[in-house]
């Protein structure tokens, strides 16, 4: 496919997606649907933020739920204890969590894979302990009430936050796209493909990983903070939940971590499915089983996600392109065989 038309298609895809997202609130028949939309968008931002680390470097964090919770609490505490205006608190919270991500990343990223995952899970568990126990500061199990930034009726409140989340999603996607096409991004992707090799080629892998982890933590914290302003009540048990992190991973993997829009698509699917099954089948712990099963299926059969799987499908029909690669390989093989005889 020539470059120009590929670009047109890409732009078209973005326009359709953006239009779909922006038009949704006016189609939503009641505030409940709108609030579900806010939740799904929140997941989309979280999954996209996660994908800075997961997609570029291949490091899988199960602890991003904790970073979001931290962002939420930081926003809430800055707003209530320091009396900052809501959105100033949100911005500062993003920066604080990003700063905290530096020592965290230094402990977690110095070592390869396994330790990173262990640290990411430990992060959730330790923050849960700390935020529960340090009740004089965090409110502990009594929770923390975050003041409403606007004086609106509930449906209006949902509408405003829907667009705020959409805006944040747009920024996160833009930054991801910028990194994706940069030299820095190429370095990160080479880490994902083969970290030793990347390092042998001169890529300072540790620094690269650390930087992108900090960026990811910052966006995650912003999503968490915005959620805190929207939702209003923070409770350590729900803010520092290992399930949030696993939903986010499931969304990103399902959609496809190598694609700009993969996590968004994953969030749309999983987020809507969660709501739908909740409404239809509600009251059994089988939603855990379903989540687990879906995650296992994705990991075993579709580790690249839906978008690439669909892409492959199309590629199979796209004969000319496919065969051109084959021919070369086959020709080369023939040469080799001839030469070997």
């Amino acid at each position, binding site marked *: *496919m020539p470059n120009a038309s*590929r670009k047109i*298609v*890409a732009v*078209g*895809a973005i326009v*359709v*997606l953006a239009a*779909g*997202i922006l038009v*949704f609130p006016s*189609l*939503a028949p*009641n*505030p*409940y*649907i709108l*609030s*579900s939309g806010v939740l*799904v968008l929140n997941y989309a931002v979280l999954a996209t933020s996660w994908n800075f680390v997961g997609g570029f470097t291949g490091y899988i964090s199960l602890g991003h739920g904790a970073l979001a919770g931290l962002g939420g609490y930081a926003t809430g505490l800055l707003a209530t204890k320091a009396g900052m205006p809501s959105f100033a608190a949100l911005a500062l919270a993003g920066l604080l969590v990003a700063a905290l991500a530096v020592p965290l990343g230094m402990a977690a990223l110095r070592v390869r894979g396994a330790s990173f995952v262990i640290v990411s899970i430990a992060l959730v568990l330790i923050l849960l*302990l700390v935020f*529960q*126990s340090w*009740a004089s500061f965090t409110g502990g*199990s*009594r*929770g923390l*009430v975050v003041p409403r930034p606007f004086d609106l009726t*509930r*449906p209006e409140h949902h509408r405003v936050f829907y667009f705020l989340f959409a805006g944040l999603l747009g920024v996160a996607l833009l930054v991801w796209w910028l990194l994706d096409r940069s030299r820095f991004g190429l370095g990160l992707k080479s880490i994902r493909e083969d970290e030793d090799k990347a390092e042998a080629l001169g890529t300072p892998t540790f620094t690269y990983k650390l930087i992108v982890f900090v960026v990811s933590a910052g966006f995650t914290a912003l999503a968490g903070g915005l959620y805190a302003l929207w*939702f*209003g*009540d923070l*409770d350590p*048990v*729900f803010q520092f939940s290992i399930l949030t992190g696993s939903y986010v991973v499931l969304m990103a993997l399902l959609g*496809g971590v*190598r*694609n700009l*829009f993969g996590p968004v*698509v994953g969030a*749309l*699917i999983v987020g*809507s499915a969660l*709501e*739908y099954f*909740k*409404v*239809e089948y*509600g*009251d*059994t*712990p089988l*939603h855990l089983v379903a989540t687990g099963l879906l995650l296992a299926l994705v990991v075993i059969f579709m580790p690249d996600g*839906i*978008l*690439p799987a*669909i*892409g492959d499908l*199309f590629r199979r029909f796209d004969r000319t392109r496919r065969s051109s690669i084959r021919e070369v390989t086959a020709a080369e093989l023939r040469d080799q065989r001839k030469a070997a005889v």
Partner: protein
Amino acid sequence: MPINHFRSTAAALGSATILALTGCSGDGSGGGENTSDPIVVGISLPLTGDFSEPGKGVQEGYEAWAKVVNDKGGLLGRQVELKILDDQSNADRVVADYEQLIGKDQVDLVVGPFSTRLVVPSARVAEEYDMLFVEPAGAAKEVFEQGFKNLFYAAPAVANDHYNHLAEHILALPPDQRPKTAAYAAMDDPFAQGTAYGLKEKLEAGGVKTVVNEVYPPNTTDFSGIAAKVAAAKADVLVGGSQYQDGVNLIVALQQLGYQPKLAAFSTAPTNPEFAKAIGNKTEGILSPTGYSQDAPYESNKEFVEKFKAQFGKEPEEDQANGYTTGQVVAAAVTAVGCAEQGECQKKLVDWLHSNKVDTVVGPLSWDATGKPQGAHMIQQWVGNDIKIVLPSDVKEAEFVYPKPAW
């Protein structure tokens, strides 16, 4: 180059999602004013997850109430229909549930969920949609500090006042008999902690020294460390701010260490039917506050116990009574005001409850401006193989035993 295949999928997904979400909205139960329509009461309860056990108890209470009301011809001549959603003991869910009940399902009334942690977020939803919110479980004082105007707690007392009768009794003992030291162990939960700390405040003010003050996370299973501390301090009084299982575990751990307090009080756990078996029947003298007694002389209580037994084949406990009481409170307001739907009506219901007293299975209830009930709990004690009311003395079924026999 996967990007070019994205367009179709994204668009398809996008519209599918919108359809899925909007599509299922047409079938809401609707809240018409037609008298033949049932009055739909929306409830979210933790039927799975950490609070599922008490959650199910409350559910039974609500169901018993609906049946009793419907058997008598309903409210305002309309049948009562419960719409119960599961919030998985999760605050995100509980809020989404009430959004759904009020926004999508257009229920006529909502009543509260279980556990203080879930009451505050859900009360906020009801508040912002201007709905009356009577709840069976938000007993911690924080609930009443949020500035809610539509909230009413349908029980005799908030957590901090549960032990008021016990505190009075202890402090009224002659100085030579009065305990000198006390140990407190409370679950990190606003309700459980509230009960223990309410008593702690009063005993400290009365000169009983606090020697141990421990807080443990809700899902603690190993109590040997806390028990070791309590046993080492040899406190006269032991107060457990507990739910069910943690109270049992703490008692067993203390028994393993051979600690014998003169007085032991636990919230919730000792009233559970399984309690005696769980701690090896060494229950003698253990105290517990309760907001409900099957033998209480209130008019509606007899009917409740009878009908509940018929419906569920067992005795109602406090959780069931709380659910039932909540229903009674709502019913009283609806009957008096004469309406039950979203909109103007809700304000009238709220105003009526603020200025009236309601007779329930736990006695007459009235509320201050924050929705806080004005009363105290009874104190029960294990005597022989049964738990009996010992305080206050005007309703007592047995004498208060002090010091407590060894366990």
